[in-house]
């Protein structure tokens, strides 16, 4: 029996098919691993150099992701431009992420100001008695920032696995800060990457490069 055509479903399936290559999963997983490798330094603590190397590794990863999309996915999957509704969603996502970044900067700025200000610092110290509680608060804020950002990205990008990735990333950030060990985010990053690798293998098998595909005529 034929199913009735649901045009919204046709569009959603076409859109979600662009995530079949597993590249997003690999990208986010590697991002978590890079964060663990470059920002964690038990001997010298957190410093500017760690942050710079992490930012550079993020740029390199994005470059690899872009190259993967261009040279692996597009020749096999084909190119598509989605309609006004998707473009509006992308714009909304951009605005929300922009607001998120401003809030994050505000939170970090306020924290630095509070700890630098002796009066506020004294008040805060009366609430946060042990270094463990301080770590707990920082880890919670960090994981909340990363987790909510990823969940928003997943929601507006219609990227279902993104919800799972968001939760895993939040957990990775929390464990990295609270337990001060890079091994947890490395393991979690690997757990995020693995389904991506399986999807990529399946994608390469399902969508081989056709001779016609090269000419695209």
């Amino acid at each position, binding site marked *: 029996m034929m199913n009735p*055509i649901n*045009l*919204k479903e*046709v*569009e959603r399936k*076409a859109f979600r*098919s662009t995530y079949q290559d597993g590249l997003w999963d690999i990208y986010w997983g590697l991002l978590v691993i890079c964060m663990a490798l470059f920002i964690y330094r038990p001997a010298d603590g957190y410093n500017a150099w760690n942050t710079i190397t992490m930012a550079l590794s993020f740029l390199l990863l994005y470059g690899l992701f872009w190259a993967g999309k261009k040279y692996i996915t597009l*020749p*096999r*999957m*084909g*190119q*598509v*431009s*989605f*309609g*006004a509704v998707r473009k509006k969603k992308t714009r909304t996502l951009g605005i929300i992420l922009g607001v998120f970044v401003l809030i994050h900067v505000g939170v970090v700025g306020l924290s630095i100001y509070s700890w630098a200000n002796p009066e506020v610092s004294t008040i805060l110290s009366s609430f946060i008695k042990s270094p463990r509680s301080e770590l707990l608060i920082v880890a919670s804020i960090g994981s909340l920032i990363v987790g909510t950002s990823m969940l928003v990205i997943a929601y507006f990008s219609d990227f279902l696995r993104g919800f799972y990735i968001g939760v895993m990333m939040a957990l990775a950030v929390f464990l990295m800060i609270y337990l001060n060990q890079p091994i947890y985010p490395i393991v979690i990053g690997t757990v995020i990457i693995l389904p991506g690798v399986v999807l990529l293998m399946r994608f390469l098998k399902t*969508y081989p490069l*056709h001779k*016609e*595909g*090269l*000419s*695209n*005529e």
Partner: protein
Amino acid sequence: MSENGGNPSLSDLADLNRIVHEPARLAIMALLYVIESADFTFLINQTGLTWGNLSAHISKLEGAGYLEVEKSFKGKRPSTTLRLTTQGRKAFHDYAQRMKQLFKDVPA
């Protein structure tokens, strides 16, 4: 329309847009209706049609003025982008409305 005063609902079937009505073309148009544009490879992957088959249907749709075919080069590789024309969008919309009306009260 029926000349011998037949069942008006059934005689409406004869007026269906046959260019859109063909299943493969209907699939192509339904997909292009919900997106802005796509290339050949994307349409093949989504519709499951073969290269030759798709090419033939594209020519027919282009001939009817329902489809705009834009050929360009991306680097050294030729690329063909397909999108529905305003006329094509209207034809698909009218066809969908008509089909809805025709099968409004199907008995169980």
